[in-house]
């Protein structure tokens, strides 16, 4: 058998070049981009459903799915490495696609190709033609006038005996895709900047009259002067507000109020109203008379099993090997009365002193009801319930990603508006100068642009009126039946 050896004229590429080329093609592939977005959408759907009862309904309907559903609920989709990797891949793909598409788009904008071919116009789905008996210059000027009146720019090029022309409008809007996609990258960058360089404390509780340090490398502290919660006659909350003093290095630097939707900024930190609750001012002395606790205990961060609806707090006293559970009266009428087994009155708190280690058999839990202002010995401790006050729960955050987020938002909306509301419209044509006059044929590059075709027909009719002729217009058939096959995927001649 004869063997044919073909010598490759081009120098062979190195494996590194081949690898880079493959990676580049992977990231510029529209098919891959669509796949990535689809995967992201599916992951977002999984994460969303995880926050609902829907997976459990599935497990109830098909009990065999229960282990899968349990894994689903246990999976922190949005915090998972695979989600982060997918976002990173999409960000890289957006960047690479942008670089890849820029030269072609810039070429369309700055130096569009004027020359076309008769075959292209012949085969066009939509076209218009007419013959003009006047001079070529009259026809050219007339067409230019029609196009420019519709904000098109108009170019011509003499090719042999023919004059080729190209007209377009909204060319700059073609760049709208770049700010939009840049915005998506910036949103991710903003999130990364916020998590790396910022901080967020969602449970910054301060009792009335007390001062808490913000921490996180700042010298700020916050004193809660007063917390107010207002209600309508129907009992619906109308306002929550914390009056605070902010200290920097121990010096008061700002006074102000914080409400829902009304945060307070100072320096790098922003304070947001989160929640509120009641606190109990307690004084606890040990057996030796030494004061072990003299603070305001915020209630609500702990649930006491004996009365789960009631506001409760827990104090750990490691030096004594005990913990003190404190339960305040349940005044919320929305709570279940049958759970209120303690039936405390205003001015009372219920306490339980129990060993820190439940396995310690030497210290038995001791319970008592404290009346405000009356010290009481409970076990080895002396407890004094001084007063009930309020505390506020603030969020303290520093988010250096916010300016990036705002820039991204403007770019995103602006880019979308430019892309969708100022579509690039293009028309190509040839004026053939012959013995019988000038024959003009033209076609829009508007394969999927119904509005573009409509505008083209309107301009063709306008040209007919101007040159006192009836143009032959080829419109799509009434049914507009195109085929849903791959051959239709090729775009207009220049868009790839």
């Amino acid at each position, binding site marked *: 058998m004869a063997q044919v050896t073909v010598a490759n004229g081009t120098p062979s590429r190195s494996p590194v070049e081949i690898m880079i080329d493959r990676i580049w093609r992977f990231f510029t592939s529209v098919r891959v981009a669509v796949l990535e977005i689809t995967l992201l959408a599916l992951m977002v759907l999984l994460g*969303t459903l995880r926050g609902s009862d829907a997976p459990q309904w599935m497990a109830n309907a098909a009990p065999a799915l229960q282990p899968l559903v349990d894994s689903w609920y246990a999976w922190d989709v949005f915090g998972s490495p695979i989600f982060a990797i997918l976002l990173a891949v999409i960000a890289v793909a957006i960047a690479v696609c942008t670089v890849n598409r820029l030269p072609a788009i810039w070429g369309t904008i700055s130096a569009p190709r004027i020359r076309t071919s008769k075959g292209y116009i012949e085969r066009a789905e939509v076209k218009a033609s007419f013959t003009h008996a006047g001079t070529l210059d009259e026809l050219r000027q007339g067409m230019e006038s029609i196009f420019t009146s519709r904000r098109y720019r108009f170019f011509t090029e003499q090719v042999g005996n023919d004059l080729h022309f190209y007209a377009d409008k909204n060319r700059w809007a073609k760049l709208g895709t770049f700010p939009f996609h840049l915005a998506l990258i910036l949103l991710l960058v903003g999130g990364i900047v916020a998590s790396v360089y910022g901080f967020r404390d969602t449970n910054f509780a301060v009792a009335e009259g007390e001062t808490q340090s913000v921490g996180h490398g700042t010298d700020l502290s916050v004193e809660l002067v007063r917390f107010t919660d207002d209600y309508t006659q*129907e009992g619906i909350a109308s306002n929550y507000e914390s009056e605070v003093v902010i200290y920097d290095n121990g010096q008061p630097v700002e006074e102000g109020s914080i409400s829902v939707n009304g945060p307070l900024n100072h320096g790098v930190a922003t304070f947001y109203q989160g929640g509120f609750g009641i606190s109990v001012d307690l004084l606890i002395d040990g057996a030796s008379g030494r004061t072990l606790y003299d603070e305001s205990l915020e209630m609500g961060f702990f649930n006491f099993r004996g009365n789960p609806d009631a506001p409760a707090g827990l104090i750990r006293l490691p030096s004594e090997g005990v913990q003190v559970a404190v339960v305040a009266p349940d005044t919320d009428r929305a709570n279940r009365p049958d759970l209120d087994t303690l039936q405390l009155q205003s001015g009372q708190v219920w306490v339980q002193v129990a060993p820190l280690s439940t396995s310690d058999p030497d210290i038995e839990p001791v319970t008592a009801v404290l009346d405000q202002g009356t010290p009481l010995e409970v076990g080895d401790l002396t407890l004094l319930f001084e007063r009930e006050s309020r505390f506020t729960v603030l969020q303290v955050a520093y988010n250096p990603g916010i300016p990036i987020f705002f820039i991204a938002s403007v770019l995103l909306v602006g880019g979308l508006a430019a892309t969708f509301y100022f579509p690039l419209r293009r028309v190509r044509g040839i004026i053939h100068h012959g013995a019988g006059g000038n024959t003009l044929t033209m076609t829009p590059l508007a394969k*999927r642009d119904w509005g573009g075709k409509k505008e083209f027909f309107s301009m063709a009719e306008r040209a007919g009126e101007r040159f006192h002729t009836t143009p032959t217009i080829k419109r799509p058939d009434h049914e507009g039946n195109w085929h849903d096959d791959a051959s239709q995927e090729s775009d207009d001649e220049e868009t790839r």
Partner: protein
Amino acid sequence: METLVQMSFYSFAASSLALGVASLSYMLYAVGRVRVRRATMTTSTGTTVTSSTADFLPGNIGAGQFGTLLTWFGGVFAFLAVLFRTIAAERLPLSNMYEFSLMFVLAISIMYLIFERIYGIRHLGAIVATIGFGMTLYIWSLPADLREITPLIPALQAGPIMTAHVSSAIFAYATFAVSFAAAILYLVKSKRNIRWLPSLEMLDDVAFRAVTIGFPLLSLVLILGSVWAHDAWGVYWSWDPKETAALFTWLVYAVYLHTRTLRGWRGNRSAIILLIGFAAVIFTYYGNYFFGGLHSYGGV
């Protein structure tokens, strides 16, 4: 105030009735008519032979025009319902599912009539007006106490940003309903080739144009929601289920736009993505029923 609330409700009831009859009229118009012809022949042997033929004809144009008229009525009454409630509450009615859905009925009427006017086709009304009517039935099904005007809870007292955020969502969903209707008609036409339905190209364009309005609006929903969340909660994105449901919807329409504009997809495949997109819209719209999280004050 009570009188205004009542007037708002009566206007809503009128809107509901108008949209119900409008959807029927549009259906009669879109489905078309069947004309049966019978011919009887007598053969030379004296036998009588009867044959029947059925002609499928476009729907009565009058039914379509009547549908348009009633959709206008539906829109005007929905506007009055919103107006009276706005005056009574001294804010736009956007705070619970009753008010939100009332606004949606107004938005879907407006968006549909705009598209009907631009494209000069009424067939979409058979689906869009039916969605609007379905929404009014949902409103009827809501507990009566939601019709009462209650003061806004502190989280919702965000004035302009809440109005912009929620209104954007309503108009985005309304335009997606138009694209959904166009996608349905596209699939019907491509399967059955019903000649009196609009051309496939026009239906594809209607769907695309609707998405080019809805998608930026949905982007605005996410952005304004983030700005609001930043002011209210100190973080602009919390991965809250309602947020992520809206993000899912946004991503589905992003897939549609990418496949259509860059991959050149059109036809049935694009139409099917639009059906998935509208399912995502419904999922997001009614998410308050099965999501917990930060948007649970929607008052369902």
